[in-house]
Protein backbone atom coordinates (compact mmCIF):
# COMPACT_ATOMS: atom_id res chain seq x y z
CA UNK A 1 0.00 0.00 0.00
CA UNK A 2 2.85 2.40 0.86
CA UNK A 3 4.73 1.76 -2.38
CA UNK A 4 1.86 1.86 -4.87
CA UNK A 5 -1.49 3.05 -3.56
CA UNK A 6 -0.96 5.66 -0.85
CA UNK A 7 1.45 7.84 -2.91
CA UNK A 8 -1.12 8.19 -5.72
CA UNK A 9 -2.41 11.77 -5.91
CA UNK A 10 -6.04 10.72 -6.41
CA UNK A 11 -5.84 8.50 -3.32
CA UNK A 12 -4.26 11.24 -1.19
CA UNK A 13 -6.93 13.73 -2.25
CA UNK A 14 -9.79 11.30 -1.66
CA UNK A 15 -8.62 10.18 1.77
CA UNK A 16 -7.85 13.65 3.05
CA UNK A 17 -11.22 14.92 1.86
CA UNK A 18 -13.65 12.14 2.75
CA UNK A 19 -12.37 10.25 5.81
CA UNK A 20 -10.20 10.62 8.88
CA UNK A 21 -7.21 8.33 8.20
CA UNK A 22 -5.88 6.43 11.21
CA UNK A 23 -2.85 4.20 11.01
CA UNK A 24 -1.75 1.72 13.67
CA UNK A 25 0.61 -1.25 13.72
CA UNK A 26 -1.03 -4.60 13.12
CA UNK A 27 -0.16 -5.71 16.67
CA UNK A 28 -1.26 -2.51 18.39
CA UNK A 29 -3.46 -3.40 21.35
CA UNK A 30 -6.33 -3.33 22.13
CA UNK A 31 -7.30 -2.42 18.56
CA UNK A 32 -5.71 -5.49 16.95
CA UNK A 33 -7.75 -7.76 19.21
CA UNK A 34 -10.88 -5.66 18.91
CA UNK A 35 -10.75 -5.99 15.09
CA UNK A 36 -9.38 -9.57 15.02
CA UNK A 37 -6.33 -8.59 13.02
CA UNK A 38 -4.22 -11.63 12.06
CA UNK A 39 -2.57 -10.48 8.83
CA UNK A 40 -1.87 -7.24 6.97
CA UNK A 41 -2.99 -5.02 5.46
CA UNK A 42 -6.35 -4.91 7.21
CA UNK A 43 -8.36 -1.86 6.17
CA UNK A 44 -11.50 -0.88 8.06
CA UNK A 45 -14.16 1.80 7.73
CA UNK A 46 -15.57 3.01 11.04
CA UNK A 47 -18.26 5.48 11.94
CA UNK A 48 -17.66 8.59 14.05
CA UNK A 49 -18.15 6.53 17.22
CA UNK A 50 -15.50 3.99 16.22
CA UNK A 51 -17.83 1.14 15.27
CA UNK A 52 -16.72 -0.91 12.26
CA UNK A 53 -18.87 -1.17 9.12
CA UNK A 54 -16.45 -2.72 6.62
CA UNK A 55 -13.20 -4.62 7.00
CA UNK A 56 -11.00 -5.93 4.18
CA UNK A 57 -7.83 -8.00 4.06
CA UNK A 58 -5.14 -7.60 1.43
CA UNK A 59 -3.73 -5.13 -1.08
CA UNK A 60 -5.78 -2.74 -3.21
CA UNK A 61 -4.37 -0.96 -6.27
CA UNK A 62 -5.36 2.73 -6.55
CA UNK A 63 -8.18 2.06 -9.01
CA UNK A 64 -9.81 -0.39 -6.58
CA UNK A 65 -8.87 1.29 -3.32
CA UNK A 66 -11.08 4.37 -3.71
CA UNK A 67 -14.17 2.36 -4.75
CA UNK A 68 -13.65 0.04 -1.78
CA UNK A 69 -13.49 2.98 0.63
CA UNK A 70 -16.55 4.55 -1.03
CA UNK A 71 -18.42 1.29 -0.55
CA UNK A 72 -17.41 1.30 3.11
CA UNK A 73 -18.62 4.88 3.52
CA UNK A 74 -21.94 3.92 1.94
CA UNK A 75 -22.26 1.10 4.49
CA UNK A 76 -21.72 3.55 7.35
CA UNK A 77 -24.61 5.64 5.99
CA UNK A 78 -26.76 2.56 5.34
CA UNK A 79 -26.23 1.13 8.82
CA UNK A 80 -27.32 4.47 10.28
CA UNK A 81 -30.44 4.59 8.04
CA UNK A 82 -29.10 7.62 6.14
CA UNK A 83 -30.51 6.36 2.86
CA UNK A 84 -30.06 9.54 0.79
CA UNK A 85 -26.37 9.64 1.70
CA UNK A 86 -26.06 5.90 1.00
CA UNK A 87 -27.52 6.30 -2.47
CA UNK A 88 -25.50 9.40 -3.36
CA UNK A 89 -22.27 7.63 -2.38
CA UNK A 90 -23.20 4.50 -4.32
CA UNK A 91 -24.15 6.53 -7.39
CA UNK A 92 -20.83 8.37 -7.34
CA UNK A 93 -19.01 5.05 -6.98
CA UNK A 94 -20.86 3.58 -9.95
CA UNK A 95 -20.42 6.71 -12.04
CA UNK A 96 -16.73 7.28 -11.33
CA UNK A 97 -15.55 3.65 -11.22
CA UNK A 98 -17.86 1.63 -13.50
CA UNK A 99 -15.27 -1.11 -14.03
CA UNK A 100 -14.47 -1.59 -10.34
CA UNK A 101 -14.82 -4.95 -8.62
CA UNK A 102 -16.95 -3.11 -6.03
CA UNK A 103 -19.78 -2.45 -8.50
CA UNK A 104 -21.80 -5.66 -8.02
CA UNK A 105 -21.96 -5.16 -4.26
CA UNK A 106 -22.83 -1.50 -4.85
CA UNK A 107 -25.77 -2.51 -7.07
CA UNK A 108 -26.94 -5.00 -4.44
CA UNK A 109 -26.69 -2.42 -1.66
CA UNK A 110 -28.48 0.17 -3.78
CA UNK A 111 -31.38 -2.22 -4.28
CA UNK A 112 -31.61 -2.98 -0.58
CA UNK A 113 -31.36 0.72 0.31
CA UNK A 114 -34.12 1.63 -2.12
CA UNK A 115 -36.29 -1.09 -0.66
CA UNK A 116 -35.74 0.00 2.94
CA UNK A 117 -36.47 3.59 1.94
CA UNK A 118 -39.59 2.90 -0.20
CA UNK A 119 -40.78 -0.61 0.86
CA UNK A 120 -41.29 -1.22 -2.84
CA UNK A 121 -40.27 -4.84 -3.68
CA UNK A 122 -39.60 -3.92 -7.31
CA UNK A 123 -36.41 -2.15 -6.20
CA UNK A 124 -34.95 -5.49 -5.13
CA UNK A 125 -36.03 -7.19 -8.34
CA UNK A 126 -34.52 -4.34 -10.38
CA UNK A 127 -31.21 -4.84 -8.56
CA UNK A 128 -31.25 -8.57 -9.32
CA UNK A 129 -32.06 -7.99 -12.97
CA UNK A 130 -29.24 -5.44 -13.32
CA UNK A 131 -26.82 -7.84 -11.66
CA UNK A 132 -27.98 -10.75 -13.80
CA UNK A 133 -27.59 -8.69 -16.96
CA UNK A 134 -24.22 -7.07 -16.20
CA UNK A 135 -22.52 -9.43 -13.71
CA UNK A 136 -24.05 -12.90 -14.13
CA UNK A 137 -21.09 -14.66 -12.49
CA UNK A 138 -20.89 -12.38 -9.44
CA UNK A 139 -21.50 -13.70 -5.94
CA UNK A 140 -23.77 -10.67 -5.46
CA UNK A 141 -25.99 -11.85 -8.32
CA UNK A 142 -26.29 -15.17 -6.49
CA UNK A 143 -27.14 -13.41 -3.23
CA UNK A 144 -29.85 -11.40 -4.98
CA UNK A 145 -31.28 -14.50 -6.71
CA UNK A 146 -34.41 -14.77 -4.50
CA UNK A 147 -35.38 -11.22 -5.47
CA UNK A 148 -36.20 -12.39 -9.03
CA UNK A 149 -39.52 -13.72 -7.67
CA UNK A 150 -40.71 -10.38 -6.28
Amino acid at each position, binding site marked *: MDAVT*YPENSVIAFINRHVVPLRVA*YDSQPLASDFNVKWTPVLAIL*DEEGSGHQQTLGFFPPEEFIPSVMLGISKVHFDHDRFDNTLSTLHKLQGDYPKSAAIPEAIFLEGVTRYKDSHEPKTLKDAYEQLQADFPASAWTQRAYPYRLL
Partner: protein
Amino acid sequence: MTDKISWETDWDSALSRAKSDAKPIFLDFFNPQ
Protein backbone atom coordinates in the same frame (compact mmCIF):
# COMPACT_ATOMS: atom_id res chain seq x y z
CA MET B 1 -3.41 20.02 -2.09
CA THR B 2 -1.17 18.27 0.41
CA ASP B 3 1.20 15.70 -1.10
CA LYS B 4 0.61 13.00 1.49
CA ILE B 5 -2.11 11.43 3.59
CA SER B 6 -2.61 13.24 6.89
CA TRP B 7 -2.57 10.14 9.10
CA GLU B 8 -3.70 10.14 12.67
CA THR B 9 -1.80 7.66 14.82
CA ASP B 10 -3.86 7.89 18.02
CA TRP B 11 -7.33 6.37 18.45
CA ASP B 12 -8.76 9.13 20.62
CA SER B 13 -7.46 11.86 18.34
CA ALA B 14 -8.98 10.14 15.32
CA LEU B 15 -12.35 9.78 17.06
CA SER B 16 -12.32 13.41 18.11
CA ARG B 17 -11.47 14.54 14.58
CA ALA B 18 -14.12 12.22 13.08
CA LYS B 19 -16.79 13.73 15.30
CA SER B 20 -15.76 17.32 14.69
CA ASP B 21 -15.43 16.80 10.92
CA ALA B 22 -18.48 14.47 10.70
CA LYS B 23 -16.44 11.96 8.67
CA PRO B 24 -15.96 8.20 8.87
CA ILE B 25 -12.61 6.81 9.95
CA PHE B 26 -10.37 4.86 7.59
CA LEU B 27 -8.30 2.54 9.79
CA ASP B 28 -5.18 0.92 8.34
CA PHE B 29 -3.55 -1.88 10.33
CA PHE B 30 -0.10 -1.99 8.79
CA ASN B 31 3.17 -3.83 9.24
CA PRO B 32 5.78 -1.21 10.18
CA GLN B 33 8.71 -3.52 9.31
